[in-house]
């Protein structure tokens, strides 16, 4: 299976081929960003636009806060059996002025994180469905130093 065949757990929120990138939406009028991407109206109350177009977001950001789930979340989360604790991080994207929550790359735990730390978008398997198909989700992974902007 090549990377481009990855099935996203939700359509249109991120690219499934490298470089992995979150996709938000951007108002064609006032240029405000939103994530997740949506149709409908611009959320800026002073902007009357109903045109939001897909917009790739910065691949890197800094950790605003983080936590670690020690119990399996309830459905509709599809938890692995046995459940393994994993971390979540809320990450600030500087250019877009948005904080986005995401799972942290497997194996990177709360103890490995700190506020202000640089992370970047990666993908990992969220769950395998009954048909054996893997569904992928974006993650926040510690940023590779060589690619630092």
């Amino acid at each position, binding site marked *: 299976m090549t990377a481009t065949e990855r099935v996203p757990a939700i359509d249109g929120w991120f690219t499934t081929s490298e470089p992995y990138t979150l996709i938000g939406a951007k108002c064609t009028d006032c240029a*405000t960003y*939103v994530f997740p991407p949506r149709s409908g109206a611009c959320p800026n109350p002073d902007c009357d636009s109903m045109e939001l177009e897909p917009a790739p977001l910065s691949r890197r950001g800094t950790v605003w*806060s983080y*936590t670690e789930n020690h119990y399996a*979340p309830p459905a509709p989360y599809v938890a692995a059996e046995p459940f393994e604790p994993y971390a979540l991080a809320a990450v600030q994207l500087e250019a877009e002025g948005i*904080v986005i929550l995401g799972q942290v790359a497997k194996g990177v735990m709360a103890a490995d994180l*700190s506020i202000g730390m640089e992370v970047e978008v990666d993908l990992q398997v969220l769950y395998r469905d009954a048909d054996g198909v893997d569904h992928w989700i974006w993650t926040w992974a510690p940023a590779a130093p060589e690619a630092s902007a």
Partner: protein
Amino acid sequence: MATERDLVVLGVGMHPWGKWGRNFVEYGLVAAKAALADAGMVWRDIQFVAGADTIRNGYPGFVAGSTFSQAMGWTGAQISSSYAACASGAQGMQSARAQILAGFADVAMVIGADTTPKGFFAPVGGERKEDPDWQRFHLLGATNPAFFALNARRRIDVFGDTPDDFAMVKVKNSKAGVANPYARFRKEFTLDDFAGSPIVSDPLRLLDICATSDGAAAVIICTPEYAKAKLGTLEGTVRIRAVANTTPTYPQVRLELPDIATDSNAVVAAPALGFKDSVAHNAYEQAGLGPEDLSCAEVYDLSTALELDWYENLGLCPEGEGASLVRSGATALGGRVPVNASGGLASFGEAIPAQAIAQVCELTWQLRGQADGHQVEDAKVGLAINQGLFGHGSCTILSK
């Protein structure tokens, strides 16, 4: 001083909080009848019924105003059924208050009850890819405690709080709750108990997070004229000085339940006053009062750390000094401004549509001097604040 616009709390009633799994309507009936008895009224006196909805109990939960009206016996009264997540009870309060001040009724009942499943709150059923609540559970497993934990972690890393500071909140609240006959958990916890409490969402332990409960609360409010006619005097009555229900101002740059992302502040700058600060601010403004006037406060301690945030949002201390405040004893019974003298959610657990109404019950008992065993000395002004998912900030101020 109270004005003609400041309605009177004529009666309050609760069903004890617990976990029985019975029909939520039964709990509500007990609370309604207790409030009527407290007010010295009969059901037919109630001209407007404001129900706070529950969304996990089928159709009767969606039309709480109707459900309780029918269960008590249809009288032809007007009704409303409101939903605002944890702030549903406050939205019900404001519904009744507006109907009265608009002249459509002289006296109204606000009522909410819930019966809740065990464990984490899960979203309502079905695959709904456009529902932020579905998204955060399915894609991230971002439970309510996970969101509480993100804020708690900020406190640790930015303000230097410790897990012990958080535990202090539970120690304080559980001690107060021991004397409250309506509280579900009437056990005093110590800091030592925390070591044995499992981590749920790091850095928060099970003891840091409030449970889900069954429970019910009802409040009867009326015009000052109605109260005076009934009681002969307004002396000593509890008055509603503010019910401020506030939404965020764009951009909302603090990550809040249930959203996966904040608004963007790249184009529009964030407002000077953060959302939760603005909720308290609006209530103070309505009441013509400030933090220095408070005798006590009931705040939504969904997590221990969250109570420290509220201290700062309420202006009880500057930002970042919540931990010092709880450590000083100022917010304990006997302190300068006791917070959650009821025992708070730590002692009650959360019964969503009832909780904000229960806060009003507690404040009413405090202001009347009827809070046996957990009475705030000489309470004159009480404030209740909470926040419901999806931008529902609410703050109520009562005074004697």
